């Protein structure tokens, strides 16, 4: 018999833990049992389904990229510098996490819409944001950015700055330190944050439908397609829901895999 550590977790804790796990797993099982397996393939490969899936993957990837580009600097500033009003800024940055997505969508509409805060500027630049795929990416980025920032800020704080200090005493200017020391060392945390953002962007609904509208191939992402289909073709809605669940599980599994390898 192999040796194992004594865990010290009280026995009764396993009961509510199992209940919690069941709470999450049962609805997924219910979904899987409702699927019309005979028609499954044709349902998920129909034109509208394919368009929705490809659009979702495209926009979520774009949104995740934006989250990384904007979120890494934000996390660095929040974790490593200190200035007046920093905790207020942090609270505001985390707002999309607690805001109902529809509220987020309305806010985005009043910012980027034709009559919005930046509406005239966007018009002048000849850009078209409302009803476009760009709007979808904006909506998804808005709701998933906090995930990356929070996750990475936590990692940066835990990692501390000891290695960075050593690197600067060796003569490395701040950008070199960031490039060769900080980022490589927080890469696992960054990857985990990026995956969380991707998963959130993939499932985004409220802000998208309010801000971007719904048009096949342009703005109708998979969640929107499911919402539309559930009235006219419930079987398609269930099949597509399962697809979304599978994609989410794959993505999360990928991250946990790389995380435990690097950790």
């Amino acid at each position, binding site marked *: 018999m192999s040796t194992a550590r004594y865990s010290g977790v009280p026995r009764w804790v396993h009961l509510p833990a199992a209940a919690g796990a069941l709470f999450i797993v049962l609805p997924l099982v219910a979904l899987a049992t409702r699927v019309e397996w005979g028609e499954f393939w044709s349902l998920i490969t129909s034109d509208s389904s394919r368009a929705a899936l490809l659009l979702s993957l495209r926009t979520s990837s774009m949104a995740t990229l934006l989250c990384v580009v904007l979120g890494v600097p934000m996390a660095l500033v929040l974790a490593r510098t200190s200035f007046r009003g920093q905790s207020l800024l942090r609270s505001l940055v985390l707002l999309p996490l607690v805001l109902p997505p529809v509220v987020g969508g309305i806010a985005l509409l009043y910012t980027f819409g034709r009559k919005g805060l930046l509406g005239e500027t966007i018009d002048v630049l000849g850009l078209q944001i409302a009803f476009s795929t760009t709007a979808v990416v904006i909506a998804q980025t808005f709701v998933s950015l906090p995930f990356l920032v929070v996750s990475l800020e936590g990692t940066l704080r835990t990692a501390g700055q*000891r*290695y960075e*200090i*050593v*690197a*600067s*005493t*060796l*003569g*490395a*200017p*701040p950008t*070199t*330190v960031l490039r*060769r*020391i900080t980022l*490589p*060392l927080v890469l696992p945390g960054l990857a985990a944050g990026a995956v969380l953002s991707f998963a959130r962007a993939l499932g985004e609904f409220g802000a998208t439908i309010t801000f971007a509208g719904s048009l096949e191939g342009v703005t109708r992402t998979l969640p929107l397609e499911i919402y539309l289909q559930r009235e006219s073709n419930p079987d398609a809605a269930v099949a597509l829901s399962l697809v979304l669940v599978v994609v989410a599980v794959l993505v999360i599994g990928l991250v946990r895999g790389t995380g435990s390898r690097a950790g």
Partner: protein
Amino acid sequence: MSLHLSARVDERDVEIDLDVADGQTVAILGPNGSGKSTVLSVVAGILRPGRGRAVLDDTTLFDLPDRSWTAPHERGTGLLAQDPLLFPHLSVLDNVAFGPRSSGTSRTASRRIARTWLDEVDAGQLADRKPSALSGGQAQRVAIARALAAEPRLLLLDEPMAALDITVVPAMRQVLRRVLADRTAVIVTHDVLDALLLADHVVVMEHGRVVEQGPTKDVLARPRSSFGAGIAGLNLARGTIEERAVRTPGGLVVAGLHGDEDVPEGVAAVAVFSPGAVSVHRERPTGSPRNVWATTVRELEPRGSQVRIQTGALSADVTAPVVAELDLVPGTEIFLAIKASEVAIYAA
């Protein structure tokens, strides 16, 4: 490269004035919390003092408040701590090559420089390993090589041997002795052997202030501070001269030999003597010793084949059989005696 430093850090209550001549190694000794590491942080640029000025050769490292401040990566000061802090994601070779690479040297040239320095510290064969595969001593050698490869103008070492296995320390000390030979360096340590073997000059700090400084041998042979005396393994009584003896504020009177010149009456002075020269008695002794003190045993501390008897202000070294014979335990009332000829008195 000579260093001049004078600075004040209010948050840590540290005030320091320090000069290191070109090619000299200065050791900063002191108890924990005396501010030694703060001094290094200030020189390296990790800590920004409220007030002060430091000049390394012709470069002003900082002149505060408000005049100038050089960032750490532009100072040319190398830092070595007790934790080697080798970059875990780089190989040993790339770790050592980091300094040259950061200043623009090509990867090939940097690696060549790195190999030279690894050989210098007898760690050449470790070049392709990852830091996680090194022992404490090996990692510290690599850290030294890494610091030196960056060609620092001033080397700062913060208790570099404190985390090492005691069996590895002598070898490491040899390495440091070799590389510090012609370098300007400041080494913070609490080990007196480090000071003796590596430093030309010693500075003793207590409570954030310099309480003593001078050439190594002088300070250790004739310490004027409690810590200095402590690590030199000596007893020290501080007070003023009264009838040729030192009278401490606590009422202790120690008679001894003055140096080449007598210290005048009323002047602040210290009396220094070795614990080994102190004899312990259960009853007040008679005979030649001029110094006899009644005191109580506070603590017994084994030191190799001897036992050090601590009584608060003074300590005495005796052999174990003596302890058993006199039935000495904490709380026992005893008399300590020492001949005046074994005590040295000099001005504080």
